[in-house]
């Protein structure tokens, strides 16, 4: 979707907020949001791509106003209802209904020391790449209304395949519940001048990770 989260190249966002000796969490509730979110994700009722899309679906003004973990919290309040952890009445009343569904924790304290992501292998010789390193490509001019990881600033621009990252889940279909549609992912090098015009440094470039379905031969 052409959402406000797709920030690359925008102006007017102000100076970068840097902080010396920054804590991991600024408030205790931020840590609780983070841990609660990861504990729910362990139930595997949604994909990482669907999770990201939930945050993109926040109203744009809210997205810009909220802090990072406020966004997580707002998206989580929608998600717990949509995926059946809580009924809308339970969320609004704060009380568990006696006859509603119950479950067991998917993440326990003992599992935390080995906590990590469990991504599928990128090695799958049965899926052939459509492009090869060195090839000139164009990022397609796509404007899907759903989740996508093709940033607006790259659409229609030409670049070169810098490296093949192997086979990865395709975010657009994964977020929409249409399956992983695994395909090759590449690091594509775009000259800064191709993206931003003659004012950009002729030496500089931006590397973007893009899937087969986002690319066409140039």
């Amino acid at each position, binding site marked *: 979707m052409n959402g406000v989260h797709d920030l690359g190249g925008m102006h007017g966002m102000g100076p970068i907020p840097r902080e010396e000796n920054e804590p991991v969490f600024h408030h205790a*509730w931020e840590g609780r949001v983070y841990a609660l979110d990861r504990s729910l994700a362990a139930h595997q009722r949604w994909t990482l791509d669907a999770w990201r899309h939930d945050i993109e679906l926040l109203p744009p003004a809210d997205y810009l106003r909220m802090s990072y973990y406020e966004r997580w919290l707002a998206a989580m309040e929608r998600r717990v209802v949509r995926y059946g*952890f809580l009924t809308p009445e339970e969320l609004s009343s704060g009380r568990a209904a006696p006859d509603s569904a119950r479950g067991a924790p998917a993440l326990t304290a003992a599992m935390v020391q080995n906590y990590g992501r469990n*991504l599928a292998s990128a090695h799958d010789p049965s899926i052939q790449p459509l492009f090869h390193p060195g090839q000139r490509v164009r990022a397609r001019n796509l404007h899907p209304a759903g989740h996508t990881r093709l*940033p607006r600033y790259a659409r229609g621009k030409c670049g070169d395949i810098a490296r093949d990252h192997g086979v990865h889940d395709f975010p657009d279909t994964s977020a929409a519940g249409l399956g992983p549609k695994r395909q090759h992912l590449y690091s594509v090098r775009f000259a800064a001048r191709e993206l931003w015009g003659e004012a950009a440094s002729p030496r500089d*470039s931006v590397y973007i990770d893009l899937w087969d379905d986002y690319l066409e031969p140039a």
Partner: protein
Amino acid sequence: MSARNHDHQHQAVPSDPALRVKALESLLTEKGYVDPAALDALIDHFETKVGPRNGAKVVARAWVDPAFKRRLLADAPAAIAELGLIRHQGEHLVALENTPSVHNLVVCTLCSCYPWPLLGLPPVWYKSTAYRSRAVIDPRGVLREFGLELAGDVEVRVWDSTAEVRYIVIPERPAGTESLGENELADLVTRDSMIGAAKVSGPRP
């Protein structure tokens, strides 16, 4: 918009996040879906066990061991597994080497993707709309804001983390560190230098 509608919108989003989180945690615990002890353990994990010291160990090893650096640049997950820092299979990591002629900078314009097994959770600046919007269009201006002025003949490569591939920058080893051991070198390596937002300074005299 009328004042009435405006008020209504605010009511639909309760203001105190601490209370909202507490209510969610209490409900989800009562219904059995989450274990509060796991929440405590996860918070402790990210506050005390995972952080930029992991990445600094990788950088220091790359500085003292050229063969390790070659393996790291060719296949980062395999090289990092040698150090026992990441046990999970499937973390897709790429290491990028900063040199006198090439400067790499990592961003996630679409959200906040970050190599947390090596660097911990990202700082607020990395997740900010300011950094995410500007790093790709004005990397030299961003670096200047961080106090790093790059010469015009240095090539800047910005890496936008749009997929599940995570990038870590191997900064240049500072001059005057020839006599330092691997642990002392690791102490010099900062979080920001492994994102590409800073260089590593030599030891304070």
